[in-house]
């Protein structure tokens, strides 16, 4: 059983860089994000140019603040949650634009025009090995959110960030991250540790049933995010059952439980992709470590971890559990800097700031690049709604 609610953290007794030094450290990020968000050319439409400038400023101000204040999660969350919300705006309006509806018709499924999302990946691997086919009605190379594009992005992100994907790249994760921040203190203060095994059970169940029936069972039956993206047309009993399940899971796992527990319940306890992604934490350079020599055993990291990845045993062992999403919350609340980003193969406790900056460059650049286009599109559609009354 895990006690809840982190006490108020006293500011870390760490040296804060001067504004000039922070600006100099942020300078390469400014150049990189400029290249990545513009693709080397500026839009001719003044409105698009304005939105591009706003997005660029948004990211770089956040990065500067991360560097200058030493707080990671506080500013990551702003970008991550904005990304999730604007993704929904962009995705839904795009679907309405091309299909005329948020729902997915049988015709579009048969034409293989369903956008591919990373949550499907665990279910595709065994059938791909057995039958040399991808069991998803999406476009392989061309089109909106193609299968190949998502696989390439996933492999790159896994190598660079491991499960950091779930806090820096996933376009759904920002939703339960947002809801987990609504209350100041949790109403449900203890979560039985056994529940953390549920995500592995969901992974095992969906992988095995997907291999048996050659259908992505999680997407068909269990994905809460269907409620805010796309879902099958409700034309029969099956469609009714599916829709009830999607909406119920969304309300329970993405809204209610995160609000009540202040934890990212969907990501931590239910997401099969997240479970699989935990394994990639073993193969990438960055992780979080606890310097046991500096640790005061105040357990702030344990109490604040939104993904239940810190236990008393893991603190003693000097690292969080495999499920760590590298959100930076434990490093933010640690009063002594004992919890810190780390590069594998290097001594723990040395060069803390440099290692953090190197991690931030990989993670933040990925977030800015991956989300930049979607954030701009979402903003553009909102501006259109305000100015013309129509988002399409």
């Amino acid at each position, binding site marked *: 059983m895990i006690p809840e609610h982190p006490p108020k953290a006293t500011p870390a007794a760490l040296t804060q860089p001067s504004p000039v030094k922070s600006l100099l450290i942020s300078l390469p990020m400014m150049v990189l994000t400029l290249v990545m968000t513009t693709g080397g050319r500026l839009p001719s439409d003044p409105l698009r140019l304005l939105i591009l400038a706003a997005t660029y400023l948004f990211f770089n101000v956040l990065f500067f603040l991360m560097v200058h204040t030493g707080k990671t999660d506080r500013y990551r969350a702003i970008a991550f949650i904005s990304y999730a919300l604007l993704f929904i705006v962009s995705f839904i309006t795009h679907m309405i634009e091309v299909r005329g509806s948020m729902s997915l018709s049988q015709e579009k499924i048969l034409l293989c025009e369903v956008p591919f999302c990373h949550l499907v990946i665990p279910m595709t691997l065994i059938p791909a090995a057995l039958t040399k086919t991808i069991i998803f009605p999406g476009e392989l190379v061309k089109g909106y959110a193609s299968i190949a594009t998502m696989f390439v992005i996933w492999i790159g992100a896994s190598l660079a960030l491991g499960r950091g994907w779930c806090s820096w790249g996933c376009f759904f994760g920002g939703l339960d991250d947002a809801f987990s921040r609504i209350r100041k203190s949790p109403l449900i203060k203890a979560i039985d540790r056994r529940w953390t095994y549920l995500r592995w059970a969901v992974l*095992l*169940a969906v992988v*095995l049933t997907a291999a*048996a029936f050659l259908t992505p069972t999680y997407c068909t039956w269990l994905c809460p995010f269907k409620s805010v993206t796309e879902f099958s047309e409700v034309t029969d009993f099956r469609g009714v059952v599916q829709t009830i399940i999607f909406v119920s899971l969304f309300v329970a796992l993405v809204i209610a439980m995160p609000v009540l527990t202040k934890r990212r319940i969907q990501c931590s306890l239910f997401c099969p992709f997240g479970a699989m992604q935990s394994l990639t934490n073993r193969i990438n350079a960055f992780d979080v470590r606890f310097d046991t020599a500096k640790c005061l055993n105040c357990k702030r990291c344990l109490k604040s971890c939104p993904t239940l990845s810190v236990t008393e045993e893991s603190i003693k062992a000097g690292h969080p559990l495999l499920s760590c999403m590298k959100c930076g919350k434990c490093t933010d609340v640690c009063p002594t800097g004992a919890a810190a980003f780390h590069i594998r193969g290097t001594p723990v406790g040395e060069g803390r700031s440099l290692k953090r900056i190197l991690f931030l460059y990989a993670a933040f650049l990925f977030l800015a690049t991956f989300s930049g286009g979607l954030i701009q599109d979402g903003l553009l559609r909102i501006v259109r709604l305000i100015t013309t009354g129509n988002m399409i």
Partner: protein
Amino acid sequence: MQGFVLGLSSGAVCAAYCAPVLVPCLLGEGRGVLANAWALLLFLMGRLLGYLGFALLAWGINQALLKEAGERSLLIGTAYVALSVLLVFYGFFRPRHACQAAGGGGVVGRLREFWPSLLFFVSGVATGLNFCPPFLLAVTAASQEGSLAGSLLFFFTFFLGTSVFLIPAPFLGLLAGRPVLQTVGKMAAGLIGAYYLYIGITLLAGGFLS
């Protein structure tokens, strides 16, 4: 020989159909390789019984089960519901051994005594009755056999061919001794059971309506 070759050629798909039942249960039990091999043997015996039972049934009623979609749905639906009940029970309930002093005998007591061997055997029978694609192929091929003995022999050799692909399953016992995996296996069995229950109910409803 033809049945064996057919089993070998389509056994991977067959294994994929059996895995959602077998893997969570083997993990959930958390036993060693030898104990898992025994569990697999029970499962395979159940599956063989299912196959031969179906061969008998199909031959006896002149393959009416294959021709009538409604009856076929009822049979498969029943098998799925039986599987789901087993899996949900396995996943979410813990059978306790009957207390001898309290006179805990009777049918339930005897069932408890044979748990989880019973689980593997009965789930083998139920998966044997599922119409997975390789099984349909075997049914079509067996229907060309003129006699009951020929049909039974075909299914037996087909069973041997497909069983080859399940040989690695007991090696899940190498992961034994990790309570986490036992919990994960039982939770997964429950989830898969719930999924099978829905499939079974829709098949039964389809069978009754047609």
